């Protein structure tokens, strides 16, 4: 994964380094309003350092991280043949409308295609219009899987025998 590098006029896309994580975490906090540095440290361990897992960033010509994207190949979840999954994407609000997001999406799709899959999927909140519109604009459409959920009851605590 270390060889991925795509240069554009105003920015380049490359593999994330450990030293980028504070900037990625800060960017995510700016976008979502929730700071979660531990989560981003864990994401780097899981996706920034292993084969066939992709944690890419966009860096502008001043050396600032202005975007990130993460994805991997997943297989056989409820019968789904191997397919690419993109499950994190963020672009600095000041750097939007400059093809940063679509360039990162193209780059990660190239990585996933080289791993042998012919589809890429993602899952979004229904009301996340920004990301939903972005992924639609890249050509993504509703797929054959549906997300379902339910609230969980509180765990039942059982007494051990003899206690």
């Amino acid at each position, binding site marked *: 994964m270390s060889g991925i590098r795509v240069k554009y006029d105003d920015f380049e896309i490359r593999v994330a380094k450990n030293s980028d994580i504070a900037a990625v975490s800060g960017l995510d906090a700016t976008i979502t309003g929730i700071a979660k540095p531990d989560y981003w440290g864990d994401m780097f361990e899981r996706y920034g350092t292993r084969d066939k897992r992709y944690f890419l960033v966009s860096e502008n010509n001043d050396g600032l991280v202005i975007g990130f994207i993460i994805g991997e190949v997943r297989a056989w979840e409820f019968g789904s043949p191997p397919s690419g999954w993109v499950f994190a994407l963020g672009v600095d609000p000041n750097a939007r409308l400059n093809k940063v997001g679509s360039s990162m999406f193209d780059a990660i799709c190239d990585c996933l295609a080289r791993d042998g899959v012919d589809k890429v999927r993602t899952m979004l909140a*229904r*009301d996340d*219009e920004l990301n*939903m*519109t972005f992924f*639609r*604009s890249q050509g993504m*459409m*509703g797929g054959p899987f549906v997300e379902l959920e339910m609230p969980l009851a509180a765990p039942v605590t059982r007494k051990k025998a003899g206690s």
Partner: protein
Amino acid sequence: MRLQKATQCALFAVLELARDPKIQISAADIADTFGISVNHLAKVLRDLARARLVESMRGAGGGYRFIGNPKRVTLYDVVKLFEDVDTHDGAFPETGEDGDIGRALNRVSMEIENITVSTLKSITLTTLLKNMDR
């Protein structure tokens, strides 16, 4: 969701005009392209003009042209002008002693409606036009 005739006409017209916002197309030509009634389309175009999505150009070579931002205008923006897509009343009356069956059916109805609305809100005119051949 079955769209009303007016909504279908509006989507045809808006998308045809948004293909190239610089050009003007007459109602008759749009109607001819899609095989729809020109009288029906004329009324729909008036509604689209009131919503500031198209404008009527007078004179020789006049017609209609798209004046919105096709990268921002979504299918929802067009559909909502003609359909009651934002009602959250549910499709089923909560009849009976508890209304429990009606409430359960309404939850399903709401789920379908929410998916419909989020789908329409996520597709801009540019996206639809760009991905037509996929």
